[in-house]
């Protein structure tokens, strides 16, 4: 803690003679990531904030300019790493839009299951951490075993847990195995009870309510002007959801509600995320039922027929000429991407995750810009916490679901 000598910025009526400068971050436990906020304080009241980000900037956009499409998927893992499958799928669907690939319905539904599991994994961490930052560790730990279960499902499908690199352009690298489906059934059976218990721990908890209601509120209009999307925008009462507005992966086939709040404060953000977890469960159940209804060849398909971008079966590579050629071309990154300019977005864990891809006909993108929701709405943080206490700043920070990896890109 450093005390500054100036007191010029003190508001009228303050009993202090000096402002205090407090570094919140870069490695503060409450930032849950690496970014810095320099708070200028009048006693315990926040006068102004200076935000520094970029500590984990990895130049993903620049690297992507020299990578074939399939090598960019692992880069997207590192954006919002609490829900990397959504980023992976967002990238795959962007490529498919550019290349004009139609995926089979079963692939769409499998993807929906993966994405909604990711949304639950993302929201349960965020809401759990809100409890932790308010002093209640129980809920966080209680839900953690279900995130573990989600990770196990992903592990069955792609072999990885956190940075998943799940799926391929056109579908999945292999079909889901029985263990994955058994674990999914277990999750669908057990998670509702756990989520209910989690809610009963916090939702009507007097301390938690006092810490969050009326803290860090934002009006819908202001939130839109700040480019808010996702749960943070919906908590402010604007029911914008990419899954409904521009459906991808056959989201139009599912029935679900968009939970919204009214005041846009921390409590509303918490409620919206909890509501979304229930809706995600609904979607997964519907998708799982739809998958079981497929008959014949449709029941086993797990990728679209795009030999130029989808790696052939290994057995075919050794025995068939075409498969060998495509395998070589894909692995060596020698597939030309048709020229074009496409913007595609998906509903990520914390908002509209957009991919703006320009191809000049080369083998790698000419330019890729990632619309990272976290980066865009974090600039409102200063406005959200101005005039409030330090403890409120902590709550606002955890309720915004800030992921340093996504912020820095």
């Amino acid at each position, binding site marked *: 803690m450093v005390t500054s000598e100036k007191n010029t910025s003190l508001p009228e009526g303050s009993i202090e003679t000096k402002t205090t400068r407090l570094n919140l971050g870069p490695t503060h436990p409450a930032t849950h990531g690496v970014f810095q906020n320099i708070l200028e304080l009048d006693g315990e009241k926040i006068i102004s904030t200076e935000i520094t980000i970029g500590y984990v900037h990895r130049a993903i956009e620049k690297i992507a300019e020299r990578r074939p499409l399939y090598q960019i998927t692992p880069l997207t893992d590192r954006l919002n790493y609490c829900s990397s499958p959504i980023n992976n799928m967002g990238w795959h669907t962007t490529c498919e839009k550019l290349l004009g690939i139609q995926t089979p319905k079963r692939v769409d539904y499998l993807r929906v299951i993966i994405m909604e599991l990711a949304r639950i994994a993302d929201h349960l961490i965020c809401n759990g951490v809100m409890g932790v930052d308010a002093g209640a560790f129980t809920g966080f730990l209680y839900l953690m075993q279900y995130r573990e279960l989600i990770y196990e499902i992903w592990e069955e499908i792609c072999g990885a847990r956190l940075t998943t690199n799940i799926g391929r352009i056109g579908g999945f690298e292999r079909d889901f195995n029985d263990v994955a489906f058994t674990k999914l059934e277990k999750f669908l059976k057990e998670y509702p009870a756990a989520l209910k218990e989690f809610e009963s721990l916090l939702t009507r908890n007097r301390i938690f309510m006092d810490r969050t209601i009326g803290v860090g509120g934002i009006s819908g209009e202001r939130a*839109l002007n700040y480019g808010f999307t996702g749960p943070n925008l919906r908590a402010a009462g604007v029911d*914008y959801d990419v899954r409904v*507005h521009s459906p991808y992966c056959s989201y139009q086939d599912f029935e679900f509600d968009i939970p919204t709040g009214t005041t846009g404060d921390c409590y509303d953000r918490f409620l919206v995320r909890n509501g979304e977890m229930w809706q995600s469960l609904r979607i997964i159940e519907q998708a799982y039922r739809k998958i079981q209804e497929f008959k014949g060849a449709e029941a086993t398909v797990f990728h679209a027929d795009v030999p130029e971008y989808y790696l052939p079966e290994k057995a075919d590579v050794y025995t068939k000429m075409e498969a060998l050629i495509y395998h070589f071309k894909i692995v060596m990154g020698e597939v030309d991407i048709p020229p074009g300019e496409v913007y595609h*977005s998906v509903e990520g864990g914390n908002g509209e995750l957009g991919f703006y891809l320009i191809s000049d006909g080369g083998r790698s993108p000419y330019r890729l810009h990632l619309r990272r929701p976290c*980066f865009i709405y974090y600039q409102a943080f200063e406005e959200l916490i101005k005039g409030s206490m330090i403890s409120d700043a902590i709550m606002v920070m955890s309720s915004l679901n800030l992921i340093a990896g996504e912020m*820095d890109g």
Partner: protein
Amino acid sequence: MALSNDLIRQRLIQKFGEQVTNIEEPYGMLTFEVPKELNIEVLEFLYNDPELSFQFLTDLTAVHYPSYAGREIAVVYHLHNLVANCRIRFKVFAPIAQPDVASATKVFATANWLEREAYDFFGVNFVGHPDLRRIQNVDEMDYFPLRKEYPVEDQTRLDKDDEMFGRGGSFDFGNRNDDGSPRLTPQAGEENVERLGESAGGSR
């Protein structure tokens, strides 16, 4: 509700006439270009017109086209009308020698950091921006890394050339001599030799 691309195009031409150029619809999204002096006027027109009301700035970024002489830097705006659920995209081009573009922060608060990012990586000078500083990179940095003259890979590597990425030398990243061999500045070469020598000699 129904807000078609044709209608938007009509309204734009009605208002700005021939200053709206290069109208395209790649993948269904209306895309056009306006002179860079007009960018705020166009943003405000699209924002305030009761029928169009594009009041959500989805994305703002820049692109570097070294081959477009005199208009190398493009600033791209993605706008969204959430009620009619319609997206559009428009671009302004600026010369790299003096990439001045008016700031959109007066219309959209979200433009603040997005413009700082575009400045950080491309050096676009957003005139009227309240706080135009670098945002991801360190303040001391003296170049704009996403410009095409800065190659991603180590310039001494021969296996990762442009031809690898289907650009066969037609595209100048600035790291090649005319005969196609990698361009090494004497200083950079010497440094490399020194660094290699150090690691080989082993100070440990």
